[in-house]
């Protein structure tokens, strides 16, 4: 038995799809009404702003309630492990509270349950770590966190927990590999292999509505890490950082191979994006290639930052204008129609962010040598020109 009703989630997704078809005029309004009647709305509907507020206030309430409990119990026994026990008990209590609230009021990601679902594993993990007499190394913490997070993800299909789990996996792996002499040189390869494995796993698992967001997130993250682990800048600078090297970082072994992957991996993404008409691969290809160009610039570039920015901006504007003109009529399976399917909120609001930041940049007088708005690489890879 999972937290939310799986059939209800499937039905909700089905309705969303039909509603989209209706706005595109592919399904008649009468049909939509009939389908709506066959699949009545099961979950509470709220407003995004209300959800943000509820999320915030639930987190604050739960944290202060935990504070209250620890203060009340602090008289009994002082020490870290008793704090841990309180946290675990509190987490278990929150778990049952979540179950009750969701069941009683038909919630599904309405802010309150988002917050509770997030807090339950955090209290459990924090409590378990506090039970240790001394704080265990980071990779042990990750090892403790992973099964709890995975169980909670299975139970809830929550996306924020998926980020935490991915962070625990990659972070723990990174930290553990550094303990071995052979680990350091193999680090990028192991990361690439793990990413490919994760991607393959996420693509092979049955695509159920309950886990659709989780799986899509795993795919995005694994591809970003794959490209970053193969990026020359990331590998070389990280290597320099680990050697605690000051000044210019030393050359890395297998230089040619990493240069090949720097360009090769985003190129493969581009190919896949073009062939499969996949938004994810197209976006990652553009970001990855931008990061690759930035990497070349970083080591061989002679242009000052200002020139580089202006040239890059011009090139980007030119490419975008060219593509928009080219796609006036759909071509090669791509189009420029506003079909209302923006993939990420950030993409949709890029214009607003640009205007705000651009205004701030333009107004800044050169009182110091620092200028804002310089770093732009993306793809989680090298972003310093």
């Amino acid at each position: 038995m999972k937290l939310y009703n799986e059939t209800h989630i499937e039905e909700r997704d089905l309705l969303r799809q039909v509603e989209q078809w209706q706005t595109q005029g592919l399904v008649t309004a009468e049909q939509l009404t009939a389908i709506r009647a066959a699949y009545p709305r099961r979950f509470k509907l709220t407003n995004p702003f209300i959800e943000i507020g509820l999320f915030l206030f639930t987190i604050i309430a739960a944290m202060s309630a935990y504070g209250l409990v620890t203060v009340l119990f602090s008289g009994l026994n002082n020490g870290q492990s008793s704090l841990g026990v309180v946290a675990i008990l509190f987490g278990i209590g929150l778990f049952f509270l979540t179950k009750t609230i969701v069941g009683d009021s038909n919630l599904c990601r309405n802010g309150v349950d988002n917050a509770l679902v997030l807090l339950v594993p955090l209290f459990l993990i924090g409590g378990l770590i506090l039970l240790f007499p001394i704080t265990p190394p980071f990779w042990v913490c990750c090892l403790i966190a992973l099964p709890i997070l995975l169980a909670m993800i299975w139970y809830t299909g929550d996306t924020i927990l998926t980020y935490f789990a991915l962070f625990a996996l990659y972070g723990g792996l990174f930290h553990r590999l550094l303990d071995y002499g052979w680990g350091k040189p193999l680090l990028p390869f192991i990361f690439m292999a793990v990413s490919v494995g994760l991607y393959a796993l996420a693509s092979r698992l049955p695509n159920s509505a309950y886990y659709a967001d989780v799986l899509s997130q795993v795919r995005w993250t694994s591809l970003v890490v794959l490209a970053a682990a193969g990026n020359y800048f990331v590998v070389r600078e990280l290597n320099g950082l680990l050697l605690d090297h000051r000044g210019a970082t030393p050359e890395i072994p297998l230089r040619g191979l990493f240069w090949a992957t720097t360009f090769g991996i985003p190129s493969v993404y581009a190919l896949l994006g073009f062939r499969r008409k996949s938004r994810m691969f197209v976006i990652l290809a553009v970001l990855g290639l931008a990061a690759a160009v930035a990497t070349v610039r970083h080591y061989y570039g002679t242009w000052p930052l200002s020139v580089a920015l202006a040239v890059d901006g011009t090139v980007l504007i030119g490419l975008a204008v060219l593509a928009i003109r080219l796609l006036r009529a759909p071509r090669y399976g791509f189009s420029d129609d506003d079909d209302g399917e923006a993939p990420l909120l950030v993409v949709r609001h890029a214009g607003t962010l640009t205007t705000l930041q651009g205004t701030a940049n333009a107004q800044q007088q050169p009182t110091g040598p620092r200028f804002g708005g310089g770093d732009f690489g993306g793809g989680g890879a090298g972003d310093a020109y």
Partner: protein
Amino acid sequence: MSPFDVLTALKQKGLMPPEQADALADYERTKPLSLHYELRAMLSVGILLLTGGLGLLIYEHYEEIGDVAILGSITALCVASFVFAWRFRPALSAAKVSSRSVFGDYALLLGCLLFLSLEGYAQYRFNLFGTRYGLATFLPAVLFVALAYRFDHQGVLTIGLTALASWVGVTVRPLELRLRTNFFDEPTVWAAVGLGLVLIAMAAVGHRQRVKAHFTHTLLAFGGNLLLIALLAGVFNFEGKRLLYGLLLLVACVGFDQYARRDRSFLFMLMGVVYGDIGLTYLLGDAVDGMALPPEVYMLYFTLASVGAALYLITNYRKLSRDETL
């Protein structure tokens, strides 16, 4: 759930004739992938990089390149952008209209950002406005707001409002997640309060007279946040006048709450509750400061206040949405 699963389910339940389902499946299989938002995001980022780069370039290299070349080329680019935007300008109307070119809006944006760089440079090099620094920000701000209304451009409106805010001493830099204020200075607080009120009034008048009514939300959100942050800063920073600012904050929060109820816009309800909660908590904390209350009291207060705020949001949402959704 893929579109094909949806179609299978609908066919099974007899909610869609098989021919239509097959046609829809065919459509889903062959429909082109729309890169609409991605391409526009790319255009925006390009404009940001270009104007950022040029803005840097002129200060770094004006001695080598020379004023004439710099001012000349940037002015030319700026003028060209404005001319392009003007050529494809939307019809003069109080309703929502759009440029007749896909690129009109972006040209206007580019022109405005270049104009800002140009003006900043003129002030830096030639001391155009002398020591009247306020004027140097105020003039473009007013120009941009006017342009925004003429060209019906939300982005340029945002630039104008940002410039107005920085005129009263508040800078917003989203990419650095930073909000810089000078709210330790009481006149700045009052200037921000005044600007917030002016923007709210503009929103109200525009809404009532149906002049670019779709700007209402932006104006209210910008003006409202400015007003509430300024009042909150008053509560935090001026010890003798805490209660006065607290009272004004309360009035503003109640006002937003009332507006939210009337208009069902929950952003404003959330703003009222969050700013009100912060202000009240601070005032209460200030009142009991030095009384050495046990920590339980504080924890209990935070728990109850947050639960109360959450319940307030839920019940009001239910009340307001009942007659709408059912």
